[in-house]
């Protein structure tokens, strides 16, 4: 199974369009740019939501309506980040699989996504003007910590 996966990844990494993207002068900067623009919009949407959750910004919005406004943009941004990330990974799978920051990043990413879609959905009953409780502050803090840890781990791939 693992062997089949390894040879599949190797085959994908040698495919002509991936090699072209990886080795051309504009391929990696373009992918990284898409990754960063997506990150900026995704984490900004998460910031807006979490700042609202703790009552520090956008307090005249109810959580459900804010979630509705942010959803198409965060889903679009997440698509940009994930798609560009997958292409970068497939261009050089051995490098990423051997990188501890990368493995750490993927682990935290799973928790970040779970906390975002699981816990925040339950909080979506909070009305406009409602004051945050201890639970809201904890969830917002956890969500921001997880997402920004993903970002920092991503940066560390290049340095470690």
């Amino acid at each position, binding site marked *: 199974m693992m062997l089949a996966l390894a040879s599949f990844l190797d085959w994908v990494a040698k495919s002509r369009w991936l090699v072209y993207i990886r080795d051309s002068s504009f391929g990696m*900067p373009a992918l990284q740019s898409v990754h*960063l623009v997506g990150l*900026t919009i*995704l984490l*900004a949407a998460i*910031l807006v939501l979490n700042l609202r959750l703790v009552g520090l910004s956008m307090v*005249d919005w109810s959580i459900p309506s804010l979630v509705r*406004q*942010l959803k198409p943009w965060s889903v679009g941004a997440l698509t940009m980040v994930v798609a560009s990330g997958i292409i970068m990974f497939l261009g050089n799978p051995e490098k990423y699989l051997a990188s501890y920051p990368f493995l750490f990043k993927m682990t935290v990413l799973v928790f970040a996504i779970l906390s975002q879609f699981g816990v925040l959905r339950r909080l979506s009953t909070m009305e406009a003007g409602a004051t945050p409780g201890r639970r809201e502050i904890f969830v917002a803090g956890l969500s921001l910590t997880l997402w920004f840890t993903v970002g920092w781990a991503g940066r560390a791939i290049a*340095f470690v």
Partner: protein
Amino acid sequence: MSLLGWCQWLEHTPLATAISESDWLFPLIEGTHIMALPLSVGLIVMFDLRLLGLAFRSGSTAKMMGDVVRWSKLGFSVMFTTGGLLFMTQAGKAYANGFFRAKLIFLLMLGINAVVYHAIFYPRMAEWDATGRTPLGARVCGALSLVVWIGVIICGRTMAYQF
């Protein structure tokens, strides 16, 4: 002193050499610069979407601007501090880099755009909140900000590939 001479002098200041010689200072400053993107540019982009009528349509524009700009100021102070430090350590190379030059021109454009918005549209935001219609000029400012900020990110990321 020429501009290039100033850049080279900057690169050899004690602060710049300390950053270049440290193993962890440069990655830390660069990481902070990138991780401040959502808090600075990201929040401004959220407000641009509001100006363009692409999100947050039902609330007050004036109120949202207050909410968003207050936090983005924190983000931009981190951005300019870390950006200044990163520039110092590689000022000579940055000087010759086309993408860095484009980034500076874009930032200048964004500064002018923000001043124009503040002078012309900001004082009358309460009026258009009442009518629910964003003036065309304000929407143009929002569109410009959105597109040029994305340009800044692209130039910032790409310039590092030429160092």
